[in-house]
Each structure stands twice: as C-alpha cells, then as structure tokens.
C-alpha cells in the first residue's frame, strides 16, 4: 500500500487514478464511514443477471464489488453461495465470462476485485490470468485458499500487472502470521469474522473486533492497509456494528439469498437494491 500510494502512483498518467481498491476505502474514510463491499458470483443468476445485479449494488451504495469465480469445489462456502455457484456453472459460465463480467462492472467506475479459489487461476496460468484481469479493468484478487506460503507465482504476477492481492486473516491466525500476511497484502486485508464458511449469521462473532485490532497492530508499514471484515454479515444492524471497528464491511450471501428467493429477476434486483440501501445506511450510522 505504502509503495503504491507513493512513488509508483507518481509514474502514472497524470489524472488517472491508481487502480487499487484502497482508494475506495480511503474515500469512505474521508466521509467518516466504513466502505461497503458486495460479493456476487459471475454467471448468477445468469451472465446478464449478475452484471445487472452488481450494477444495482453499485447504484444503491456499494463502494467495492467482488466478483466470484464459480468453482466446482468451493470448500470455504456455505450452502447459499454453493447454490449460486452451482447455478452459474450449470448455466455454462466460463473463466472468460468472469473477465467480461469484471469489465462490465468496472466500467461503472467501481473498484472491482475477483474472488477465486486457486485452481482456476493455476490452470489458466497465473501470469495470463493477471494480464487478462488487468485488461478487464479488475483491481486484483481475493484468494481464500492461497496463503503466502504458496503464493510466489501470484506475488510476481500481481507485481508485474500492478494488481491488488487480498489474503485472508482469521481468528486463529497467530500474530506472527498476521504480520507475514499483511506485509504481502495490497488493497486491503480481508478479516474473516468467524471460524466457519460463508453464510448469513444472526450475530457478529465477539472475536471479530479483536481480530481487526490485532491485524492493525501487525502492520508495520507507515500507512497501514484498510481492514475489511467479512463472513456472516447480513443486515444494516450488523453492518453498523462492524463499521464501528473495521474499515470495510463485506457482504455476500445475503445478496445471493435475495436473488435465490425472489420469484423473478426484477423482484430479486429490487430486494438487492433495498438490502444495499439498508447496508449503506448501516455503514453510515
């Protein structure tokens, strides 16, 4: 973060913003609030449906969009995201479609990341994936099953294409690991609020605030990265609570649930719009 906001950004074309998701967090911070990060898998409920839903989320107040790359074996995801991803894969979504989704969403000006399990990137070729993500206007990757130990090819590729790399920290992470992980993160740090898979929960884990605090302490850079908190957040009340101690509030399954339960895409989009507004109000409380 410090190196990007420093000398590197000076080399960019004048007036062109550095394409890092950190700027979205900075803007929210300048407004005295947390950023709202919304997740949706590409291809769900359809290619166009996902693009429209993501644009709806942006219009209604999401500051950052995470596009999920549908994968056959999402072992960090609960039943809601599993259902959505299954639907996307059954609908024939391909990796190339994920890049097209990113392109369409990023064109709105919103900072857009891809969240993906590692094998599809490995298979595509790490460098080629970084290149095509960058061409599509994506800011970088969130990698739930890639930790720094195995990340060398991705560290190189993300440097080559100037992409954000968001690793996760967990309640079980030692201080030593927090330091190691955050030193390699760029854009923001994704703090998993609970020990478990994705999915809505009725309450935010009491350890979450402590994890955010520990993560901040672990960062030694002059200007430390924002810390976003995800897993389990599903309503305005929880968003407000999380915004009280984190720089970003990440919501995924709750959006998908709205689309899964709606009788039509239009009804689903309405529900997504209402939820986004509720969450956006939450992070502003």
């Amino acid at each position: 973060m410090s190196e990007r906001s420093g000398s590197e950004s000076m080399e960019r074309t004048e007036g062109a913003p550095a394409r890092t998701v950190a700027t979205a967090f900075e803007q929210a911070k300048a407004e005295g609030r947390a950023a709202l990060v919304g997740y949706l898998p590409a291809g769900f409920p359809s290619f166009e449906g996902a693009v429209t839903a993501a644009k709806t989320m942006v219009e209604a107040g999401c500051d950052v969009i995470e596009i999920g790359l549908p994968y056959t074996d999402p072992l960090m995801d609960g039943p809601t995201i599993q259902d959505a991803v299954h639907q996307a894969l059954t609908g024939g979504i391909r990796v190339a479609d994920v890049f097209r989704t990113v392109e369409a969403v990023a064109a709105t000006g919103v900072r857009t990341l891809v969240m993906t399990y590692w094998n599809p990137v490995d298979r595509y070729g790490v460098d080629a994936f970084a290149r095509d993500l960058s061409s599509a206007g994506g800011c970088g990757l969130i990698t739930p099953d890639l930790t720094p130990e195995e990340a060398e090819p991705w560290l190189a590729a993300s440097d080559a294409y100037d992409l954000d790399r968001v690793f996760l920290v967990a309640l079980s992470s030692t201080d030593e690991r927090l330091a190691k992980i955050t030193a390699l993160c760029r854009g923001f740090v994704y703090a998993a609020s609970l020990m478990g898979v994705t999915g809505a929960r009725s309450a935010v884990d009491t350890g979450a605030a402590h994890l955010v605090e520990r993560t901040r302490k672990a960062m030694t850079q002059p200007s430390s990265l924002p810390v976003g908190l995800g897993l389990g957040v599903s309503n305005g009340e929880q968003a407000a609570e999380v915004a009280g101690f984190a720089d970003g509030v990440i919501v995924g399954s709750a959006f998908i649930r709205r689309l899964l339960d709606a009788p039509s895409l239009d009804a689903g989009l309405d529900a997504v719009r209402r939820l986004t507004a509720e969450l956006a109000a939450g992070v502003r409380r």
Partner: protein
Amino acid sequence: MTIDAARSLPDLTGHFGPFGGRFAPEALMAALDELTTSYETAMADPAFRAELDHLLATYAGRPSLLTEAKRFGAEAGGARILLKREDLNHTGSHKINNVLGQALLTRRMGKTRIIAETGAGQHGVATATAAALLGLECVVYMGEVDTVRQALNVARMRMLGAEVVPVTTGSRTLKDACNEAFRDWVATVDDTHYCIGSVMGPHPFPMMVRDFQRIIGVEAREQVLELTGRPPDAVVACVGGGSNAIGAFHAFVPDEGVRLYGFEAGGSGVESGKHAATLVGGSLGVIHGMRTYLLQDEDGQTLETHSVSAGLDYPGVGPEHSWLHDSGRATYEAVTDAEAMDAFALLCRTEGIIPAIESAHALAGALRVGRELGPDATIVVCLSGRGDKDMHTAAEWFGLVEGEGPAGA
C-alpha cells in the same frame, strides 16, 4: 517404521518435489501447524509409539498375513502371487492402520471430536471404530450416491455410534464428502480433528497418513524375504487417493530392482472420459489443499469421476504418487470396471477370498504384470480390503439376484 527413511520426503513445507504443499484457508493454518508439531512430538515419544503398536497388534490384528495365491497365480502368467492381507485387519481394510494413529493423536491434542470423509465407507467405518474405542464423538461425511451403493457400511458406522451425514452437493461422491468435512473442520477446529483417510490434503496429512500406512510394505518386505530370500520383482496396489499403495510401496522405494505398479480406476475406459484415472488421464493442479495431478477441464473445474468402486471414485491423487509418477519410480495404469470385476470373480473362485472392488483393481493389474513378467516373477499384491460391503454391487453386476440378469457383463 524407521522415521528417517520416511522423512526424506516431503520437505519441511510438505512438498514432494513440485507436489503437495498447503493450499488451505488461513483459518486452518494454525491447526495444521499444531497437527504437524503434535505428530512429530508423538512419533518421537516411545510411549505413543508403544500404544499405537500395541493397538495394531492386539486390536487391528497386525502383522497381517502374506498369503500365496497359487491358483490365481496360474492365471497371472504363472507368476508367484503373494497377497498382503489387509482385508484381514479389524474393520476389513488397511484404513484402520492410519485411523488408530490419528485417533490417538486426536486424544493427545486434547480434542474430543473426530470427523472423516469416506467413499466406500471403509475409512468411515475405521474412524467410527477408533472413535468408539477411544470415546470420541464421530461424524462421517459420505456422498449420497455412496451411501446408497455402500449401504451396509452406513449401517456399520451408525451401529458404532457415528453420525453419518449424506452429502448432497456436487457429484455427491467422495470429493464432495471431502469438501463438506473441510467446511465442518473450519468451524470446529478448536475441539475437532479431521481424520483424512488417504495420503491427500494439505501438509502434514500426506506425510502422516503415509507414515501410518507404511507398515504394510515394511511387513510385506520382511515376509517376502523370509519366504523367498529376496525382494519381490514387483509390488502392485490400487490407487484412488492412494494410501494403501503408498503404504505398500514406501518400504520398497529404495529397492531399485522392485517395480512399483499403481492401478487406477479406469471406469468405462480412459478414452470414454468416464473414469477416475488421475495419473493416467489427468493434469497438474490444486485440489483439497495439495498440488497434484487431478481430473479437470480447461477452466480448472473438477471433472466428475466414474468407477464401479466407490473408494477409487476420486478426481485427485496423493501428491507423493504424483512425485513417484513423474520421477518414473512407479508406474501407473488404468484398470476398467469390467477388468476389475473379472479379477474380483477370479479371486473368489480360485482362492476363496472375496476382495473389495477397490482391491480387485490391483488384482486385475497383477494379472497384467504377471503375464508380462512371467513364471519366475514374485509379485506382492496389496489386498487392501475385503468385499463383503460390495456384495450388492457384485450381485447386480453378475446377475446373482433371483429374477434379474447381469447388469455389467
């Protein structure tokens, strides 16, 4: 078990050359580190080793027999076929070797709950058994498809006090059971150990499971030397995830003259696309926490596998097998459903031993290797499990049910 020999690979970060490693959620990293440390301390503790050895001898029934299969050997080019009888272990397969080790480790780590994935149900039954023995809570994840074709094992696990959870996501087989077990573990890691049943998963599992299974080859090597005065010409095993094969191979890896053969599930034939022959028909990637060969499409999506054997119906393979494959030390070939079922019937009729359908893939491979090496060859075949659980499948395949014709022939 000589630890030094077992430790040359993997390296400290769990890599067998380019394979293995740890592709796991951050939430599990602390538990994987804890497991690695606990495992290493335990194996260096004579009391732990003594308790494990005692259980293997007085509970599992080790050492397992080495049975000469003369009438079967006559069909295998006249080669001398020696069956390593893991089917005679308590619970009916090699799985108990690993599970006793991991269950003792679970207790040593102060954890009270043990979870497992299972395909054919052999690992699930072994885990449920060890949990009952040590008073641990036990949950077994099993693909819904497998709960039907291995219904007898579901009943066994439930009788032993385990909760069996049918998994209804994805292809509803072994890989989906693994996914579900990982999801459980991420949420319960404080009091729960995930007892992985094969030489797969993130480090230290491939190493640890191999170390617990290598007793198969250690015993077999001694038994063959005693019987024939020299090492065998070949060691043959079936490979799904690959734990019985690594167990059988490992002690023989330094014996350069001993050929190692792994037989994968060829399903309807590798060329048909309906198979589970990962090393024969797969490509490099990452699955279930490890870098290894797997069956995937061009987008890196896991392909559905097909095999008459639920225990081999898995799209990945242990990373040490990928290493043995690429280094050329072991040879991997595919055996079709039909070949395996023919060998299944042949062992029944020539030796009076009903093998597991998984093990029947090794037997079919032994027929091939024996015909190639000829009557002077001595071949050790790992008979990894017994076939009682497969009677339903076999009865359908061979048309043994009154009023029904054969389905497979």
